[in-house]
Every structure is written in structure tokens, then in C-alpha cells.
């Protein structure tokens, strides 16, 4: 654990921590990150079905909250596409922020790894510190073998969510746009159509990430257990009982298996709702505080909550990564746990 905050890895650490360099190199060579691109594509398609009815609904009723659906910037349909007939193309401002943050991350990783030094400094040092801290942290939780295989996903998700959360906190994101003026003072306090909007305050985004994880979770579970082992892991009896008790235990654990399947199916829902709920509630809190302060103290009241939101952004990124990591660990066969 004391390597968690260590700087300046020496050359020996390189050979030991090969997956980290692979990770950074992978981020460097976009061509090799087909999987990353796939994730990004999934994120986009998740947000592409941004529901227009909800957006209309929000503007119709002038609800005292942030709009549920992000305003659409592009809303067209490409006709006569083979196979799917009509291809709707919808781009909302949450997606634009997603792309901007994605580009920023890719470019900064590229710039940092342009000239790799044995004793890193500057940007390379920073990224190596981030990735190495994450690696040793995850290694302590899910074990040596599993972290080698799954690190790319958890690290990407953590860095991406953290960057998105903190980007949405930049003053101006979500607070500049078109709104409804207050009937008494004529001051626009409530923004219904922000120009920029935090992507994690959009359920489409978090749901896309949770579903991406769910897909990889199934892939990893099948790879590690095999189809039969996967079913045995869910329904098979645990512990060593003998004789009549064994028969009883088999029945009990078959029932437990069904319960487990229900809880597994709820994981993507609770994962996405947790992140969305926290970020959306945070934005609402900031807006409420700014309104409460009035024209004079509107800048002062949200300040403490800004610090809270910075913390929440970090904690929620951590929670998303940890939960997905632990869920992956739980489905692995017993000997794969690595630490006991």
C-alpha cells in the first residue's frame, strides 16, 4: 500500500509492472485500442437514444429542476440506409462533452508518452503516477492475475468518469444557456437549455457505461469459468457438507442461484442510477444554492458545495470502479482470487 502515492518509478519497476506500460502505450497507439474505441462507440450509442419526449416534457411543464433529457444539437434522420432502413442521428450537448473529454485524455496521454524517459518527469510522471497508483490499488483488491487481465477497463472507467465529473464542475458548464426568466425580477435563474451539460447528469451515459461493464463481465465470467462452470458458480452448492445435508444444500443453493441472478440483473441499474443520481443531485444542489443566494450572493452560497461536488466526483468514480472490480472478482472461480 505504501507504493500508492509513490513517484518516480525506476527502471526495474518497468519490467515488474509491464501492464502499466502496456496500458499507457495502448492509450498512445489509438490503432491498437480497438476495444477502447468500441467502448466509446457504445457510450455514444447509449447517448444517441436521448429521448426527445422527455426534453419536450421538461420544457412544457417548466419543472423546477434540470432538464431530464439533454437538448439536442443535431437531430436528423438518414434515409435508405441498408439493413436498418432509417438511421436516426441525434447529437446532444452531453455527447459533445464526452467527446471533448475523450479527446483531451487521449491527447494528454499521447503528449505524455511521446518521449518515454527512464526517470520520468512532468506529464509522463503524472500519468505514470495515476496509472501505477490505480494498478497497485486494484491489485490489492482483485489479485495479481485478474488485475493483469481487466486493468484496462477499470482504469479507463475511473479516469474517464473522474475527468467527466470534474469537467462538468467547471463554472459555465450547465449554467450558461437559455432559461425561463423569473416572473417578478425578470432575471433568468433557471436554465432549461444549457449550452454545455455534464454527461454523468444524463442517465444515457451512465447506463451505457454500466451496460458495457455488464457485457465484459459476462465475457470474463465465461472465459474464467466456462459455460458449465458459470452455471455451477451461480447454482452450485458451496461449502463441504455430506450425506442428506448435501441434498438439502443443493436445493437451497439452487434457490439462492435464482436470487443471485435477480441481484446480478439489478447491478447495471443500480450502478447507473448511483452515478447519475449523485451527479444530477449535485448539479441541482449547486443550482438551488445559486438561486437561493440571489443576484448578490449567488456566487458565494454554492462555493462550499463546489468542494463537496469535487469530492463526490472523485468518490463516485472510485465507487464505480471498485464495484465493477468487486463484481468481477466475485464471479471468478475460487482459486483465481489470488489473496486469502
Amino acid at each position, binding site marked *: *500500500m505504501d507504493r500508492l502515492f509513490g513517484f518516480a518509478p525506476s527502471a526495474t519497476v518497468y519490467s515488474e509492472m509491464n501492464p502499466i506500460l502496456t496500458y499507457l502505450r495502448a492509450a498512445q497507439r489509438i490503432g491498437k485500442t480497438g476495444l477502447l474505441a468500441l467502448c466509446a462507440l457504445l457510450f455514444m450509442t447509449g447517448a444517441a437514444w436521448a429521448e426527445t419526449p422527455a426534453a419536450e416534457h421538461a420544457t412544457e411543464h417548466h419543472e423546477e429542476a434540470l432538464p431530464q433529457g439533454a437538448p439536442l444539437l443535431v437531430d436528423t434522420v438518414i434515409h435508405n440506409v441498408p439493413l436498418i432502413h432509417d438511421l436516426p442521428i441525434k447529437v446532444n450537448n452531453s455527447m459533445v462533452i464526452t467527446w471533448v473529454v475523450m479527446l483531451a485524455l487521449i491527447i494528454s496521454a499521447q503528449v505524455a508518452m511521446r518521449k518515454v524517459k527512464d526517470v520520468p518527469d512532468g506529464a509522463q510522471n503524472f500519468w505514470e503516477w495515476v496509472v501505477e497508483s490505480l494498478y497497485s490499488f486494484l491489485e*490489492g483488491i482483485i489479485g495479481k492475475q485478474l488485475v493483469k487481465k481487466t486493468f484496462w477497463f477499470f482504469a479507463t472507467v475511473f479516469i474517464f468518469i473522474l475527468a467527466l465529473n470534474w469537467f462538468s464542475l467547471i463554472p459555465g458548464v450547465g449554467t450558461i444557456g437559455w432559461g425561463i426568466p423569473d416572473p417578478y425580477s425578470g432575471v433568468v435563474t433557471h436554465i432549461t437549455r444549457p449550452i454545455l451539460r455534464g454527461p454523468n447528469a444524463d442517465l444515457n451515459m451512465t447506463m451505457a457505461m454500466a451496460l458495457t461493464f455488464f457485457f465484459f463481465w459476462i465475457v470474463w465470467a465465461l472465459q474464467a469459468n466456462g459455460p458449465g462452470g458459470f452455471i455451477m458458480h451461480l447454482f452450485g452448492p458451496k461449502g463441504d457438507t455430506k450425506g442428506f445435508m448435501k441434498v438439502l444444500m443443493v436445493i437451497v443453493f439452487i434457490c439462492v442461484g435464482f436470487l443471485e441472478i435477480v441481484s446480478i440483473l439489478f447491478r447495471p*441499474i443500480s450502478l447507473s*442510477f448511483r452515478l447519475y443520481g449523485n451527479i444530477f443531485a449535485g448539479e441541482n444542489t449547486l443550482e438551488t444554492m445559486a438561486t437561493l443566494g440571489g443576484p448578490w450572493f449567488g456566487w458565494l452560497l454554492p462555493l462550499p458545495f463546489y468542494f463537496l461536488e469535487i469530492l463526490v466526483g472523485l468518490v463516485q468514480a472510485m*465507487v464505480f470502479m471498485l*464495484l465493477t472490480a*468487486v463484481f468481477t472478482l466475485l464471479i471468478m472461480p475460487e482459486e483465481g482470487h489470488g489473496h486469502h
Partner: protein
Amino acid sequence: MLPILAELTGNLHVGLAALGAALGVGFIGMKASEAVGRNPGAATPILVQAILSTAFAEGIVFFAIYLVAK
């Protein structure tokens, strides 16, 4: 008292679920910090347990939100 209770409308269950979840998360945090205080070496396994149980405690609120009547 009973008529008042009978006339209660709205989505009371979300509030109750939030209350319960908040209490649950608080207890988990309390016990986890106590456990780390007693055995700092076991901080990582305790963190995993705490995060998992927190997730389950929080999940109740999401289920309650699903049952909100408009």
C-alpha cells in the same frame, strides 16, 4: 391520528427508503472505521466489504424511486 395517516398521499416510501439507506450507510461507515482502527492491516478487505454493503444499502432507494407514482 388515524384519519391523518389515511389521508397521507404522495411518495412517502422514497423518503422512508432514503432514511433507511442513510442510516444503513452510516452504520456501515461507523463499523468499517472501527474495524480499520482495530486492525489497520485489514484496511483493503474491509474497504471492499464496506463498499459492497454500501452499494446494497443504497440500492434500496433506487428500487423505491421506481415505485414513485406520478
